[in-house]
């Protein structure tokens, strides 16, 4: 009995030391159909997964195919575009070549025109100069030979002085009615004699005397006074040239004689140096 009690006590003691246990929870008894339901659900899930996989697989396949197709289409269109571009390029090159030829031809013609104009521009001024010179020479020759004599208010023709040949020409003393230099018929006029010339001179002098004092005289005097003022006619200031013998002249220039001799020697030396 004690053992029993002891054991009971032990049990009690153990019961006292043991922690209070939680409340017991009750688990539901598994549904026997649940595995089947779960299995069925798993199968459905698997089927759905497969379908999903198939979908994505198809989707991927479609995408790849689409890309391939697009790439192929792009390649085709690229090729066509290149073909079209090549055709266009050939046409543009031909057009460009035509344009360049046209330009080159235009430039060539322009260059030829400029060359012609250059020659013209080079020749024309000289030609004009030569023509002008010849024309002036002809006019000058005619002017020196043929001039209208301007008579003074008295009707008297002034003297024409040819300073080259030292010839003085008085138109009023021309004994013939007509005179010329080139026409042959004028050159066949009869020769005039010394008597004719004297009579013409006398008539001219008589006309001068008769017209003296008429309008124009003052003008002549004015010109004469003007010339006198300009010392062209001289006013008697310059003495007359007097010829003297060398003996009388020697005292007048004997002081410069050495310079003359020196200049002669210098001129001789210079001419010898230039000659050598």
């Amino acid at each position, binding site marked *: 009995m004690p053992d029993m009690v002891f054991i009971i006590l032990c049990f009690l003691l153990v019961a006292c030391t043991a922690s209070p246990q939680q409340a017991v929870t009750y688990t539901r008894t598994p549904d026997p159909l649940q595995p089947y339901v779960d299995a069925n659900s798993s199968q459905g899930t698997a089927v759905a997964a497969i379908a999903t996989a198939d979908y994505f697989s198809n989707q991927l396949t479609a995408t790849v195919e689409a890309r391939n197709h697009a790439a192929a289409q792009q390649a085709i269109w690229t090729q066509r575009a290149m073909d079209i571009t090549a055709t266009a390029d050939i046409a543009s090159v031909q057009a460009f070549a035509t344009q360049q030829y046209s330009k080159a031809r235009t430039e060539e013609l322009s260059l030829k025109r400029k060359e012609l104009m250059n020659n013209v521009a080079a020749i024309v001024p000289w030609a004009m100069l030569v023509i002008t010179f010849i024309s002036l020479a002809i006019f000058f020759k005619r002017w020196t030979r043929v001039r209208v004599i301007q008579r003074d208010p008295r009707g008297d023709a002034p003297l024409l002085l040819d300073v080259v040949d030292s010839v003085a020409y008085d138109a009023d003393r021309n004994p013939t009615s007509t005179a010329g230099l080139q026409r042959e018929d004028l050159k066949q006029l009869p020769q005039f004699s010394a008597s004719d010339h004297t009579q013409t001179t006398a008539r001219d002098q008589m006309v001068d005397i008769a017209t003296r004092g008429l309008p124009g005289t003052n003008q002549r005097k004015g010109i004469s006074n003007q010339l006198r003022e300009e*010392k062209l006619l001289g006013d008697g200031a310059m003495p007359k*040239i007097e*010829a*003297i013998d*060398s003996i009388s*002249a020697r005292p*007048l220039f004997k002081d410069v004689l050495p310079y*003359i001799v020196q*200049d002669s020697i210098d001129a001789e030396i210079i001419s010898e140096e230039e000659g050598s």
Partner: protein
Amino acid sequence: MTEQTQINRRYFLEAEQIASRLPAFFEHRNLKPFFTNLFLFQDLGMTILIAVLDTARIGDHAQYIQDDLLHQLKTELGGRSMYLSNTTGIRYVILLTALPKLPRSIELPNDIPHGMVSLGMRFNGQLITLTWSKLGHLLIVGMTGSGKSSLLRSLAIQATRNEI
């Protein structure tokens, strides 16, 4: 007046031309063209015109003898040889002909008087003679080819002729 007839008329015309240009030349430079004489003559192979200024009327003489004036006058007259003679008065000596040319060679004459020595010839052909006593010491200077040896040779010949 016998000399006048010997002078070619061409020189008279030239002299008149020059004379007619002188007044304008001087008046243009504010100088008085007072000339008393214009002499024309021939000497030493040259025909010369001398224009004598009236020094009593021209005033300041210095303006008439300036080198610039002479140069301008020479240019005015076409580069003729012109000289100024102003030892007694003021005269412009204008050569109407070229300067006389020196002879290339002069033959030693045989008619040189005894006791005389000839040293050369003037432009007019006259001999330059002097006595041996006046010759004295002699220094001959000249360029190569100018005739130093020829002169010495002529002196030696003349000395031999005079038995010196």
